[in-house]
């Protein structure tokens, strides 16, 4: 990573942030039934950085991502992608859903799942050519899964499934990567492989946003943190925002002081 990029990651969003942000959310409220899951949330993703969305279970982390992507319909709120409406910018976004959100018994192979990432290129009827296949294989190689290309997806371990999902996102060739709990229930080797891919994306100047639940690895993995418990608690660099005070506000005393002490927190 260049020094310049490193420096940029520390800066607070400027006034014209909405125009330049890969993903800016304003006044987002989402509710399933009566109670809001996400309430009046603003978020300004900083380009070229890795941002962790953290918060307790049911705090609206995944819902915020889904609403930003138009998967669930928000009650209110505005989403701008690179200063434009979402619909015109879809090809610049790649999404990795929660692994458990699909049925892995679906009759298809690893390579077919990665090729789904090329849908925008292939359209309804264009034939899959060798160069499409090569591209999909290159994405599998990046996550260390080439030897599994012909496997039925149900034969994969949890970590391997997660890598396949990441490979599919890579195939989309996007600038902004949104990942929902990419480290949930994966083995240590997969966690290492995924974080190294995400860091290499960041170093290429792409933007990464991930819902993350392991507070201990936030300072090591991420540049920025977005803390949410239905409402936004804090947003900023790990140094600025990942403080004991903000954690206490986010988790509402559910983290005991001992746990907070063990975290590698910014002086706050």
């Amino acid at each position, binding site marked *: 990573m260049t020094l310049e990029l490193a420096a940029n990651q520390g800066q607070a969003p400027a006034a014209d942030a909405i125009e330049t942000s890969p993903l800016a959310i304003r006044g987002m409220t989402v509710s399933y039934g009566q109670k809001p899951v996400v309430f009046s949330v603003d978020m300004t993703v900083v380009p070229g950085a890795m941002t962790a969305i953290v918060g307790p279970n049911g705090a609206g982390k995944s819902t915020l991502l889904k609403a930003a992507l138009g998967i669930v319909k928000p009650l209110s709120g505005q989403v701008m992608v690179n200063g434009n409406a979402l619909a015109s910018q879809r090809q610049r976004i790649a999404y990795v859903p929660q692994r458990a*959100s699909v049925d892995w018994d679906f009759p298809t*192979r690893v390579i077919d799942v990665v090729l789904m990432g090329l849908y925008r290129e292939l*359209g309804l009827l264009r034939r899959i050519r060798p160069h499409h296949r090569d591209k999909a294989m290159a994405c599998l190689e990046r996550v260390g899964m080439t030897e599994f290309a012909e496997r039925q997806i149900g034969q994969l371990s949890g970590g391997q499934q997660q890598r396949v999902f990441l490979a599919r996102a890579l195939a989309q060739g996007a600038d902004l990567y949104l990942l929902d709990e990419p480290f949930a229930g994966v083995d240590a080797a997969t966690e290492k492989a995924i974080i190294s891919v995400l860091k290499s994306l960041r170093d290429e100047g792409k933007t990464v946003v991930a819902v993350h639940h392991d507070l201990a690895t936030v300072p090591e993995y991420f540049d920025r943190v977005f803390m949410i418990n239905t409402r936004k608690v804090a947003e900023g660099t790990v140094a600025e925002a990942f403080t004991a005070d903000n954690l206490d506000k986010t988790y509402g005393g559910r983290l005991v002081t001992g746990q907070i002490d063990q975290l590698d927190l910014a002086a706050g």
Partner: protein
Amino acid sequence: MSGEEFVPLSLTPLLIGVFAAIACALPGNFLVLRKQALIGDAISHVVLPGIVVAFLITGTVATWPMMFGAAGAAIVAVALIEAIRRLGRIEPGAAMGVAFTSMFAAGVLLLEQSDTSTVHLDVEHALYGNLESLIWLDAMGWESLWDPVALAGLPPELIRMALTLVAVTAFVWLFWRPLKISTFDEGFARTMGMRTNLLGLALVVVAAIAAVAAFDAVGSIIVIAMFICPPAAARLMTNRLEMQIVWSVVFAIAAAVLGYFVAGFGPLWLGFGNAVSAAGMIATMSGMILALTAIFGPCRKRLGAPAV
């Protein structure tokens, strides 16, 4: 069996049965994978009152009135389900069960009370079709296939079923990728800009069209077996969707052909006097194919974890 006997009496019912089985199996593959197999059940129940009302209004059993009738019934069903769900504050599954069975029962009563003696429409027909009666009286033998005069006398049900099959195949072929991607991972499909709700609705509409067209062949109830059995059996034969579609078509054809002949000649071979219902036997064959694949199919074991 000679051509003089086979072509007029068996060829057209056989083809109608095969076309109906394939037209139902194709969308059935996606319904089964989406865990919406019982939507086929729901469709088949709703179709009956729609067709009966369309007949009472127009006095014919032509294609368009039947399609509109079924569509109208579907709209009534959706409204009814919504009303029961909201007023009764119960879960949608229960509301569906109540709405569909009631509408079907109403269709049966209506049919029983109306004078349908001029057309092929009665309770028996509605329950298990009328495949054997869809014969081609103008045919003399195989040579009639090239005789324009004889061809003009083909039963209209055959043309209707063939066109339906073409339309269903075109839908699955054209929307293959969106159907596959959104069936596997709907959230991801939406982030690519696919209108997954619209696609899901289109799939149900296509299945409904197939059900209405298959009404002549197999009635409105046995059609459920055609939606579910061949695709479910095909899933147990392969772990690739492309191959699953091929297997489902093979099983659909096998069930239709075997069912037709076993119904027509099986009882005679066993020494009984009368043939049995072809539609009933086609559904029985579909079920037997599913049972065989469930015991011997190479891909019977669930591999991956289900979605939460």
